[in-house]
């Protein structure tokens, strides 16, 4: 199936803590297709952070398989995973995670630096990405000169600059007020409408409501996986 972007088969992750082994994820099977807009929900301790780290290739599973865009990433080594993160995944974090001393443009250029793109192309693509999120006039500002919403939009531009297979957002509105949260959700909706696959991890029901499909985790397993009619049309 060519439009299958993410395919998790019986994925599990255990942590060894001293004498105890903690099962954070106990066999998750999940398929996400191109241009889906999925929210992953669950109370704290449900394993949603672990799942996000696995999907984001920041962590490797202790069991099961993870296929991303046709490649099995669950058996990849460090450097190969770094390459996958660079090409296939665009991260948006709760705390924005911008480099404080770099300008908006330099922050957006960062994934391209690790992708080995030439300086001229980097600049062009970074500027295009910033324009896409409506920050064409803020390119030379540093994060501390930007509002929370603007910072998150810089982070989104950075996530998009490499044309990733998935946009992976971890509580993207957790540090924002409700008006700004809505603004960011509109950006996500626009990107989704343009064909971007979006996966969002959140514990806020009203934020998850923007997604077209809601996956709920509980105790390391999928408790429910339902389409969301009120969300953006797929």
């Amino acid at each position, binding site marked *: 199936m060519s439009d299958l972007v993410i395919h998790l088969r019986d994925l599990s992750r255990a942590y060894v803590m001293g004498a105890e082994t903690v099962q954070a994820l106990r066999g998750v099977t999940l398929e996400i297709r191109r241009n889906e807009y999925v929210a992953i929900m669950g109370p704290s301790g449900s394993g949603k952070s672990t799942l996000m780290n696995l999907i984001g290739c920041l*962590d490797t599973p202790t069991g099961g398989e993870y296929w991303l865009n046709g490649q099995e990433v669950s058996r990849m080594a460090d450097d190969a995973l770094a390459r996958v*993160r660079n090409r296939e995944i665009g991260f948006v974090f709760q705390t924005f995670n911008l480099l404080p*001393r770099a300008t908006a443009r330099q922050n957006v250029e*960062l994934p391209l630096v*690790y992708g080995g793109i030439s300086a001229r192309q980097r600049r062009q693509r970074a500027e295009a990405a910033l324009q896409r999120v409506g920050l064409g006039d803020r390119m030379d500002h540093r994060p501390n000169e930007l509002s929370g919403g603007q910072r998150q939009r810089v982070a989104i531009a950075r996530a998009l600059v490499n044309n990733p297979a998935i946009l992976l957002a971890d509580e993207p509105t957790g540090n924002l007020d409700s008006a700004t949260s809505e603004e960011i959700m509109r950006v996500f909706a626009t990107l989704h409408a343009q064909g971007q696959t979006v996966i969002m991890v959140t514990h806020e029901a009203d934020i998850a409501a923007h997604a077209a499909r809601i996956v709920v985790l509980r105790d390391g397993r999928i408790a429910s996986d339902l389409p969301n009619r009120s969300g953006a049309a797929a």
Partner: protein
Amino acid sequence: MQIKDAVGEALETIRTQKLKSFFSLIGVLIGVTFLIAVVSIVQGMNVYMEDKFANKLVGLNTFQLRRVPNFNMGNISEETWREWMRRPRINYAEANYLQAKMATPAIYSRYCSENLPVSWNGKTAKGVDIWTADAPIFQIKNLDLDGGRVFTPQEARLGEAVAVVGWDLSDKLFKGADPLGKNIAIEGIPYRVVGKVAKQGSLFGISLDKFVIVPFDAPVHRVACNLGFMDELHIKTADVASMQVALGEVEELMRIQRRLKPGQENNFAMQTAEGALEGWKKISAILFTALPGLVAISLVVGGIVIMNIMLMAVAERTREIGIRKALGAKRRDILAQFIVESATLSTVGAAIGILAGIGLAFVVRATTPLPAAIAPWSVGLGVFLGVAVGMTAGVYPATRAAKLDPIEALRQE
């Protein structure tokens, strides 16, 4: 990750944290400063010693036959000293024999010197070197006249009381007036000044122009020399090659005259410019042996300081490392970033050290008689050491940074 970005990052760190950066660089800075300053001074001394000391004081293509060597920088044992004092002086017969038998063309001058006061018109200059010598001494010592003439053969043969004065002496006694034709008094005997030698300059702040040259047999000879003997026989040949030949000839002829058996030590000395430099060469060799040790100590200390600063930087920027890893930085990208950053820091320290070293060398040159010449290789070595120390010091912190787990790193506040 491109090197340029990492260098920029390091320079940015230095710019925003000037004081901390300065302290972190001080070890490398001092090491390189020391390297440049010492090498500059030693190099300067080398040039100076070869140019001024050897060529002016002793002379090119020139050597002196003496009773004992006259430039000794090493320690001389009591025993050696006694042996020297037992040696016969060089006498006229020996000098004449040499001049008659030498195959290599050369010019000769007998020579004695004594330190005596010289007076004129009620004024006295103390501690003037009085040289009693033959007329070729001017040619042998490359003394150009600034006025007047050298001795005539007749004046030399008769030992007349005529004198050629050095520039400083002339200046001091005559206060700018023309010394020619004036009568100066040495040991109560008047000497007519017939010539004046052009300015020679100074060596280690000691004037080379405070002398009077009189004919070898002039009256002061009785004070300066033992009758029938000379302090030195100066010999000058056409070039360095013929000087080497002449040295051999003189040695052989002297051994014949003094009836030395094979295996017996020479009881005379031949002083060349090369020989005069030997003492200095010993000192500069010691300096160059000690220098790497001293520089190495400060560089090791400097390297440890930089390593600590980099470990702190890695700890402070753990989150940044997490972000970079999340965005696709590989281990070697992070490794390279911190090594380049460390090398840049250290190289900046080395660069400041080079400037400080050059500055120090110039200060030494300006405030002491010691000369200084910047050796380009020492500057190159300074830069190289800066880069090398920085890279070495950066390896451990950079490895720690590269090994960080991205999830853990991102969690860091």
